[in-house]
């Protein structure tokens, strides 16, 4: 085996590497160049150099957007992991057949377009057709309410959208936890809830952290949901809605590119921190 030359390997990998470099790395480079170009209200950008777009990050308006984005997406990530974790855990204790059904459902929801999720939730939370009507029928509420648009609606729909991602990140670890571990705890008299809280959760600490970060990054990049369910007031938009708004409605691609680069740096930073933290923890 060792005498084999790696030359054909490099030759084979050359094409795809070139393709990915050209179509993935180069666009990021151009995005960087665009972010310091001048604004052109009648086109995408005008040649030139300016740091004005980055300077706008320092304004209180932008600080408010960042704070809101972090709050909305952090909350959504937390909720989705809190639902996904016990669900995935319980399913991995079921038969293989049940797990396949679960995975098909998870993948189907995962592939659902964000637009479709946002559309469905805007109906679910509306006054005329939403769940509040069911609560009224059950006598739990006096009259139907409109829960969209608003902060809670965005958080709810984002939690829903990221739920399948969270489940898929947790699935490998949870499915590998040997049933004997929990059986041992229960033989010793621990209740299933206590076993879950004191054995299973600590065993999965690393994937939980990874999952939270991933869900956060995913929701931060969501566009259709905050756009469809969020309020019409730009101050309450998440950063992704602003990026799209600047690129098209405001005809300010350079500022959109600068914000995308900020988002890129934040994401890479978060991934790096998780890697280091999880790598060092073992």
């Amino acid at each position, binding site marked *: 085996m060792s005498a084999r030359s790696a030359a054909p390997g490099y030759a084979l990998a050359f094409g795809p590497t070139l393709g990915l470099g050209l179509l993935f790395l180069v666009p990021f480079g151009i995005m960087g160049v665009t972010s310091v170009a001048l604004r052109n209200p009648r086109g995408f950008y005008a040649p030139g150099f300016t740091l004005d777009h980055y300077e706008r990050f320092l304004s209180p308006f932008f600080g408010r957007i960042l704070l809101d984005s972090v709050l909305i997406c952090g909350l959504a990530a937390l909720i989705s992991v809190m639902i996904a974790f016990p669900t995935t855990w319980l399913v991995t204790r079921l038969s293989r057949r049940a797990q396949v059904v679960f995975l098909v459902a998870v993948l189907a929801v995962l592939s659902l377009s964000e637009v479709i999720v946002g559309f469905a939730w805007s109906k*679910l939370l509306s006054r005329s057709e939403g769940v509040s009507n069911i609560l009224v029928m059950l006598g739990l509420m006096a009259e139907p309410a409109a829960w969209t648009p608003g902060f809670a609606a965005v958080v709810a729909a984002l939690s829903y959208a990221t739920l399948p991602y969270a489940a898929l990140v947790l699935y490998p670890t949870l499915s590998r936890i040997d049933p004997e571990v929990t059986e041992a705890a229960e033989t010793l008299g621990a209740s299933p809830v206590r076993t879950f809280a004191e054995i299973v959760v600590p065993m999965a600490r690393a994937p939980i952290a990874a999952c939270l970060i991933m869900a956060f990054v995913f929701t931060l990049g969501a566009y259709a949901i905050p756009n469809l369910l969020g309020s019409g007031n730009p101050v309450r938009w998440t950063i992704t809605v602003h990026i799209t708004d600047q690129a098209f409605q405001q005809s300010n691609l350079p500022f959109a590119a600068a914000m995308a680069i900020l988002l890129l740096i934040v994401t890479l930073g978060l991934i790096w921190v998780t890697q280091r933290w999880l790598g060092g923890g073992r």
Partner: protein
Amino acid sequence: MSWGARAFLGVVALIVAAPVVVLAGISVNREKALYFPPRGFSLDWFGQLFTEPAWRDALMTSLTVAAGAAAVAVALALPLAYACWRWSLRGGGLLYLLGLAPFILPPVVSAVGFLSFWARLGVWGELWTAVLSHGVFLVTLPLVTVTLGLRSIDRHVVEAAETMGANEVTLARTIVLPLVVPYMISGAAFAFVLSLNEYIIAFMTIGFTHETLPVKIFNSLRYGYTPTMGAAAVVFIGLAVVVFGLIGRFGDLPKLMGAVTRRTD
């Protein structure tokens, strides 16, 4: 499983199903309005999806982009995964990371990248730019599945073939490729379904010249509600269930998703 656990799973299943139920309800309204529960019953809106030019065009654009993107993703992923596996390339880890990156980053970042890129090249809005953009964005999926498939090949089989004098081409054609084809197909299927549903990259690359179905649904939410939106959503959900159901039926979905131990039922 305890009563409480069953109840919990039931509630989660209910929440997960709720939006799908709403969409299905909307899609069968008799009138051109988005009532839920639906008023009257009609399947005309599903027909509209295939007969009304605007919706049919969007459906065709989506299918074209998704098929092209799946092909591009596999064409990039297969040689990369193969080279990294067969020759344990120096820098192979970095190449693999390059393949994972598009899927890890928020899509809006890649979308702005693609927008800047195609705009600068002066081809912004061309259909094929969305095919290439989606292909690169979704390359991660076949890369992961094919790598998984390659790693599950018994090294002894490869060594036996080498001992018998098989050259690289014969080895690839007669041993390796037949074994990884199922993984290639699942990877392509994943990429296809996700491309069908992807919004932000499709919008930023070709949203103003060719509408994909998600872009069309989004625009319809602004200008002109019609139950066809619900019908389109239901068709897409059905398509996803069929594709993943087939992978689950004929492939090893738990393994693809990262489970290693197999408990006997």
